[in-house]
């Protein structure tokens, strides 16, 4: 059985013709991102966010508990990202079956965030070899309209920045710990070392000649689009996912098959991406800052702070 979206010749030809004329079917510029909208940062929970990005909709939750660290890494906390896609997002994803696409999405998010050490694992250690924090991120895709990787990565970083773990005190000379209720003591934010931002560019070859496509001789015909929606995703001839951070470091770069890309294009793309990375990083920072401010005024924490200062 084929659970796939049928793309018609009409849509395909129209899409290619429009690209040749410099038009995207959704009216965006070639290197224009959709802006995240309806961002919801939970007020009564730490580490829960929802956001929409075009029609793509995700929710992300961070949770933590205390466990024994792995034997070979006694000083490090444990960090995991769960992202399973189910048929709620789109019927092309089968329930309980990991499609290649799904595996690719979760691997790249994992590679960008977990393996780039964006979360300081050593700060999660409580008693070495005995107790460490285990942080789990559950990323849920609710509606699919392309570009799960970039949006998922952004969502996870936003949720991690929003999360706070309960404060703890070590007693009995390092034998036991007290976990303070979040209402009793202000919980602690995670130590995030850098914010990786993924950007996916999809490539399209508008030339009629298939031979040339394969050889990659017709560079001038290659068009790349940033942040593609589901229709553009179906029609793409190849894509490249670049993960960068604000320090202008390339964290990962993956290109899985598809048409070949010229080195110069790759350099251009990386340089152009800096602009978006800065925008998105700042967006996360301002969102969190505004949210903190709001929480501060609403809970009237000022009174408490005065008490603490004295």
């Amino acid at each position, binding site marked *: 059985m084929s659970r796939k979206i049928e793309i018609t010749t009409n849509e395909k030809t129209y899409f290619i013709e429009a690209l040749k*004329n410099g038009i995207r079917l959704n009216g965006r510029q070639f290197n224009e991102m959709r802006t995240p909208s309806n961002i919801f940062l939970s007020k009564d929970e730490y580490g829960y966010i929802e956001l929409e990005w075009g029609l793509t909709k995700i929710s992300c939750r961070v949770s933590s508990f205390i466990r024994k660290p792995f034997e070979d890494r006694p000083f490090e906390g444990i960090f995991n990202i769960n992202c399973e896609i189910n048929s709620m997002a789109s*019927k092309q994803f089968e329930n309980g079956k990991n499609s290649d696409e799904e595996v690719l999405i979760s691997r790249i998010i994992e590679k960008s965030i977990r393996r780039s050490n964006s979360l300081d694992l050593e700060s999660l250690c409580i008693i070495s070899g005995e107790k460490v924090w285990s942080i789990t991120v559950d990323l849920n895709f609710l509606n699919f309209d392309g570009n799960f990787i970039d949006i998922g990565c952004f969502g996870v970083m936003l949720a991690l920045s929003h999360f706070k773990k309960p404060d703890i005190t070590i007693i009995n000379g390092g034998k036991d710990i007290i976990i303070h209720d979040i209402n009793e003591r202000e919980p602690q934010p995670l130590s995030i070392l850098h914010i990786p931002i993924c950007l996916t560019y999809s490539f399209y070859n508008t030339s009629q000649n298939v031979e040339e496509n394969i050889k990659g001789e017709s560079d001038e015909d290659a068009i790349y689009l940033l942040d593609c929606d589901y229709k553009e995703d179906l029609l793409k001839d190849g894509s490249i996912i670049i993960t960068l951070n604000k320090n202008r470091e390339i964290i990962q770069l993956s290109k899985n098959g598809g048409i070949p890309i010229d080195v110069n294009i790759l350099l251009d793309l990386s340089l152009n991406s800096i602009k978006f990375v800065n925008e998105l990083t700042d967006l996360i920072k301002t969102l969190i800052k505004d949210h903190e401010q709001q929480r501060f005024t609403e809970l009237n924490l000022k009174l408490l702070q005065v008490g603490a200062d004295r």
Partner: protein
Amino acid sequence: MSEIILPGDKLPIHRALVQEDPENEAGSNITIGPGLYKSINSKQIIPTQAGIFESKTIKRHEQLYYIESNSSRYIPQTNDYVIGVITGVIGGESYKVSLQDFSNPVILSMMAFPNATKKNRPNLQNGQIVYARVSNAGNEIETELECIDPTTGKDGGFGLLDESGFLFNVKSLNYTRELLFNPNSTILEKLSSRCKFEIAIGINGKIWIKCGDGLNLNKMEVEDDNGSSTVSNDSSKDIKVTLAAVKYITQCQHSSPDQFDNILQQSFKDI
């Protein structure tokens, strides 16, 4: 004003008619439409969908009852006008057609075209789209389409929708019904004030639209040799107009009639 009915509600129909007795002549005058279901066990007519209850008198002693409601999943009914996507060939005799992504495929016989014979068959490729009529639909059998007007044997507007037009999906099926069947709808009338267009509306939520001359692929290729710039400009304008029209039609789906003009203005502002 008609009222909102939820599944399980009592229908505002005369009780004697509802508790229909198969032998009673008077009871056979009810026709039930979408949203209503005659329970097999209790022989009662019950509403199964939430929507606006409508009752119409077709003839004397003949009542039509149905629930007007919206959905996004198309369920084929005989005589519906639909747009189908060719997805394959079954046994060399008929095409496999998709009416909506993930729905059960339907069948379009190669003989269901005007002037088709065993020797003279239509030649459709996968991915091409046709405007067709549902000729046979039912739960127990596979749904069939035909691209022929049964009364005249001619094409009657059915058949292949060529690549010069754009195909897009509309989520609300009630909206496509409105566009196709309501002659008083102002939505398309307003659009005609901004551009010339040709449209095919399938009530399975697919709309094919061609504004101006549409894409003219053949012309492009011929003139490519002696400077394609002029030609591509033409087609560039038509593409823009088409996309603006698509935007307008899609957005009207979620707004009230007094905003239509505004949306039209917004959609066409760059042209």
